């Protein structure tokens, strides 16, 4: 909300600079986001939290002045020549302001017109520029007449964007020559209020905070009405019926008769403008003004209209709308209401949407002469709903009601506004305010043991100071031996009872006392028992392992689309957790395929990378297969499974002077990584089997099983899908593993094999086998047959050719025999080799190949 300094000063003395005040408020939890300087001198260096805008008005150059005479410009129809007295002399000023053009033929004006005058050399905003460019006044000739000074519009002074006419001050403005800054110079604070600060959405609320922060006494406005006993009213007060007091706990109404509706005086218009509201007429302006001042929204009805509709004394009823009931609001929108919309109605139907916007029919117009002022209390949750239903987020009244307004405010605010309007509109109040108040607001009482302050804050605020702070915020405080008995003020809805109330009070004390005044200490409370985090440690170990294997980690959006997953996985991956309010169709489900996310990343990067080798670790979301509609939301939560996905695409080696081979990464680059992962996490009971999966190329699809449990697939991706992602130049290799499962299988510890001290015997053998036998079958057979003496089995050659026959392959192994207890002889090795060859022949028909 916007709070002008001049307005705050009506209720509190302020003796510090605006930017110092802004800091004070900000640190107390009322964040001043910006200060707009309107004429007042601005700080040369801004080191506060707050953004600073606006301009200064030089007191020598920008002053109050009077127009004494207006004549038509001899050479231009759309211009007039005004004689301006600025306290020092008479100056001719040429202006085209429409509100002076009216005086074109006037000559000497009867009551001098009070205006803002810029002398030669003054610096102002350029009224014709849209970006607040400044300009300095100098002598020039306009249509044959010399001009050197100016009568100012609001835009030229930075008050508003208004440039249609010049400012015309009220007749009681100070004398000519008075610096303008002394009259209306201001600094406007733009304050962002958190939801707990609803009681501060008013000038009075902010002033009260300043009072507490600066130890200054508040001067609240007078809220009495004067009832004219000498006149007799032509009206009866309306009857007021509240159908649901839980939604409308209070309704007050004051009738002001024989009022003149017209534009408000300039000072009032100015305050509304700089506070962000548009002046309408004195009735609407006063209701808005008092709302900004007190925080309680008001509404004005044309009582002539109400009487006319009732054909007698109006009967006001507040109730929920009937389904599809209609009301045209004063913004001209024809609104269809629902059964949760609260209404103020009369005998003839809806008058206004309670607390948010009035109806067009009962709106105050220039012909209105009797006005009924409403100040009521509405349920904030209901108002919040209607604001959303009716798209009325900009309503200032709705903003306040939806955050909570204490019912205690209604009567005082109503009378404050009614009395102001009676005087300003020259009307009379002949009936007392009608106050229907079925559910009285109760204020909470809190017993604050004094030691609680230290227990929470780590410092004991002196009790005297604590009492002062609370009293300055209008809490009622009684000191007892070891505690304070505290009653929350009427205007507060946010103060709880018991522990909650104590926390609320301590927060008030802390923020006014100042967080800066609380010391910094280190925890000396009992340290908790440490817990095991073994799964997380394993996850991080895997991350490190993948990085050491040369892979770049990525993190993608968890939000994806079924379309992408279908494209990558070549099958329907649903059902998914779907979003009710996605921002885009590409992010409308919670992913079920991590590989799809990782592949999308490769697709994004392939145009500018020779070699992509990436991995991602992250959750996928598996919806519970629940058909039970009555399942609690707890039971409906998806399972979050951690997965690991790897994608390789591109050249095997980066281009360099030393190697410019064009070879792409092949299946065995990925297989090497998978081997090394399994090796690095010390899982030995695994197998890799040929398999089929629609996402992968037939014949190049591997399934990883750990302890016979399938962990996931890897291999060469199906080019039909990868080419759609722009991955056309190389094979795309990918792995998609269930990481939660891998982590489950990872041993918490592993033991090492001792390194033998005896020399090894190393020899190469080649076995010829049928093509359909997997190398892994032979390799494991060799390892198994070789037993503990065979330390290492390295497949170093796979050969096919005429020499060994069709549908055959030769597998070349380098075998390392080494005993832990003796030096092996060639004989020992030969024995073992013969056993291996024999077994291979028996099981797989393998033939030894002569070299």
């Amino acid at each position, binding site marked *: 909300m916007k709070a002008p300094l001049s307005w705050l000063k009506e209720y509190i003395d302020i003796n510090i600079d605006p930017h110092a005040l802004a800091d004070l408020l900000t640190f107390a939890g009322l964040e001043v986001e910006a200060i707009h300087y309107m004429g007042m001198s601005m700080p040369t260096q801004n080191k506060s939290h707050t953004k600073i805008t606006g301009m200064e008005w030089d007191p020598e150059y920008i002053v109050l002045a009077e127009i004494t005479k207006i004549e038509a410009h001899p050479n231009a129809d759309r211009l007039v020549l005004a004689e301006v007295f600025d306290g020092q002399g008479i100056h001719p000023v040429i202006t085209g302001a429409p509100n002076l053009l009216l005086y074109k033929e006037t000559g000497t004006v009867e009551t001098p017109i009070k205006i803002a005058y810029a002398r030669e050399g003054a610096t102002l905003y350029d009224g014709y520029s849209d970006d607040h460019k400044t300009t300095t006044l100098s002598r020039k000739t306009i249509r044959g007449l010399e001009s050197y000074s100016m009568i100012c519009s609001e835009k030229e002074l930075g008050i508003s964007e208004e440039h249609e006419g010049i400012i015309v001050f009220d007749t009681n403005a100070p004398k000519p020559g008075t610096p303008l800054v002394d009259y209306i110079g201001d600094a406007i604070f733009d304050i962002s209020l958190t939801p707990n600060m609803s009681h501060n959405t008013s000038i009075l609320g902010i002033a009260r905070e300043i009072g507490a922060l600066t130890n200054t006494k508040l001067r609240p406005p007078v809220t009495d009405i004067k009832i004219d006993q000498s006149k007799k009213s032509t009206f009866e007060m309306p009857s007021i019926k509240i159908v649901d007091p839980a939604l409308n706990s209070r309704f007050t109404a004051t009738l002001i008769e024989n009022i003149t509706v017209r534009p408000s005086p300039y000072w009032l218009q100015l305050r509304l403008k700089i506070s962000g509201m548009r002046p309408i007429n004195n009735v609407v302006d006063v209701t808005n003004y008092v709302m900004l001042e007190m925080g309680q929204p008001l509404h004005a009805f044309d009582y002539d209209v109400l009487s006319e509709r009732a054909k007698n004394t109006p009967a006001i009823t507040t109730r929920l709308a009937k389904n599809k009931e209609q009301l045209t609001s004063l913004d001209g929108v024809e609104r269809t209401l629902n059964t949760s919309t609260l209404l103020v109605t009369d005998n003839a139907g809806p008058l206004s949407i309670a607390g948010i916007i009035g109806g067009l029919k009962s709106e105050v117009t220039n012909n209105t002469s009797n006005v009924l002022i409403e100040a009521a209390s509405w349920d904030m949750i209901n108002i919040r709903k209607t604001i959303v239903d009716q798209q009325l987020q900009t309503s200032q009244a709705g903003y306040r009601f939806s955050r909570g307004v204490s019912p205690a405010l209604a009567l005082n605010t109503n009378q404050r506004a009614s009395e102001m309007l009676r005087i300003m509109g020259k009307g009379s109040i002949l009936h007392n305010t009608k106050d229907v108040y079925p559910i009285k607001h109760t204020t909470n009482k809190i017993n604050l043991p004094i030691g609680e302050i230290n227990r929470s804050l780590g410092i004991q605020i002196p009790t005297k100071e604590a009492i002062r702070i609370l009293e300055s915020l209008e809490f009622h405080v009684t000191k007892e031996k070891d505690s304070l008995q505290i009653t929350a003020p009427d205007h507060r809805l946010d103060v709880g009872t018991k522990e909650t109330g104590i926390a609320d009070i301590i*927060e008030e004390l802390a923020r006014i006392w100042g967080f800066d005044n609380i010391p910094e200490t280190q925890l000396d409370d009992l340290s908790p028992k440490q817990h095991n985090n073994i799964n997380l440690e394993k996850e991080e170990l895997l991350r490190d392992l993948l990085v050491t294997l040369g892979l770049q980690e990525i993190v993608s959006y968890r939000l994806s689309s079924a379309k992408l997953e279908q494209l990558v996985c070549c099958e329907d991956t649903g059902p998914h*957790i779907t979003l009710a309010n996605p921002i885009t169709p590409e992010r409308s489900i919670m992913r079920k395929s991590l590989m799809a996310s990782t592949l999308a990343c490769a697709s994004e990067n392939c145009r500018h990378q020779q070699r992509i080798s990436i991995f991602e670790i992250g959750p996928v979301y598996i919806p519970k297969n629940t058909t039970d509609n009555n399942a609690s939301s707890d039971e409906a939560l998806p399972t979050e499974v951690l997965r690991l996905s790897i994608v390789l695409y591109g050249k095997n080696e980066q281009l360099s002077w030393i190697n410019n081979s064009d070879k792409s990464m092949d299946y065995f680059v990925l297989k090497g990584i998978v081997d090394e992962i399994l090796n690095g996490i010390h899982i030995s009971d695994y197998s890799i089997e040929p398999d089929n999966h629609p996402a992968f190329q037939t014949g190049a699809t591997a399934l990883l099983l750990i302890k016979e449990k399938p962990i996931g697939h890897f291999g060469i991706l199906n080019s039909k899908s990868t080419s759609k992602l722009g991955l056309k130049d190389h094979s795309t290799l990918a792995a998609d593993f269930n990481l939660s499962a891998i982590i489950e299988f990872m041993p918490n510890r592993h033991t090492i094999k001792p390194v033998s001290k005896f020399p090894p015997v190393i020899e190469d053998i080649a076995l010829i086998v049928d093509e359909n036998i997997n190398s892994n079958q032979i390799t494991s057979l060799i390892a198994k047959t070789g037993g503990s003496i065979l330390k290492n089995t390295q497949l170093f050659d796979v050969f096919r050719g005429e020499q060994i026959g069709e549908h055959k392959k030769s597998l070349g192994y380098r075998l390392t025999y080494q005993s832990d207890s003796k030096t092996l002889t060639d004989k020992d090795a030969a024995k073992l080799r013969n056993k291996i060859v024999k077994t291979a022949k028996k099981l797989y028909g393998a033939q030894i190949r002569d070299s």
Partner: protein
Amino acid sequence: MIEKLEKLNSIAISELYKTSDINAINLWHTKHLGKKSHLMAYLRNLGQLPAQDRPKVGKLANEIRYKLENAYDEHKNTLVSQPTTTNKNSIDITLPGRPINRGRLHITNIVLRKIYSIWADMGFQIYKSREIETDELNFELLNIPKHHPARDMWDTFHTNTPGVILRTHTSPGQIHAMRTYCPNPIRVILPGMCFRYEQITARSEIQFNQVEGLAIGTNIRFSDLKGTLSTFAQRIFNKNTKTRFRASHFPFTEPSAEMDVECFLCSGKGCGVCKNTGWLEILGCGMVHPTVLSNGGYDPNKHTGFAFGMGPERIAMLKYGIDDIRYFWGNDLRFLEQF
């Protein structure tokens, strides 16, 4: 004849190692091994020699030719890879090395690990909880009732299952942790991905990491919160980092505060990153609200606690001068490879 050939050889070899660029070595080749060279002339004219000399001279000439060609190749290779030197044993040590495919963590995880280790030093252990949550855990148990104006502080992604949402902060982890450890004291950090219903811009993202912290015990005070968080700031930024606390509001803490750190880019003098204020907003914090303590199973009359929440991506942005939050999940390798 043999002597002449030997001489030819030694001259050619000595001239070869005097050449220091490609042009010179090509000229050398033409001169000593080209069609018009003396050596070639000998080979062509072998037939004119006496028959008994022919095999011997022929063999030698061919040997010399082979030796010179080899020496030429070797010297040329040295010259090509190292054109500035004349020493045959030196190499151009400025040539790029063999390319290595280095792996890296994603920047977010680099920063997360830094954060984890600082908190681990202070006795705060990691506690992870789920990303898709119930409305109850994400809001209601954290003192944010349905329809309360405080809900406006979070723009929420709702799923099509009523009451199931994407968590908007890591704070539901507070309830999970409390219910796990009650009535024992707690010191945990709750890291993880959170989601907000927002437009994706340079400043706002639909998903982001948060690291929440929670300490609960029988003697934990706001002053401890200040001291602990200041220590953290000095560890993650630098040891002279100043902090300040502004009053703020979060429904699950009271009193609540925002912690600013003195801008480490300009040492508080004011710059573009700190919007000329000299300070950077880093995290929100406060004393755990009594209602939240009760919801976690603790007695607010016996226990107190503090909680805080920070964004690792924001810290990364400040530390590395990243001006667009979309870099994080954009996964452009040209960005990720800079860490």
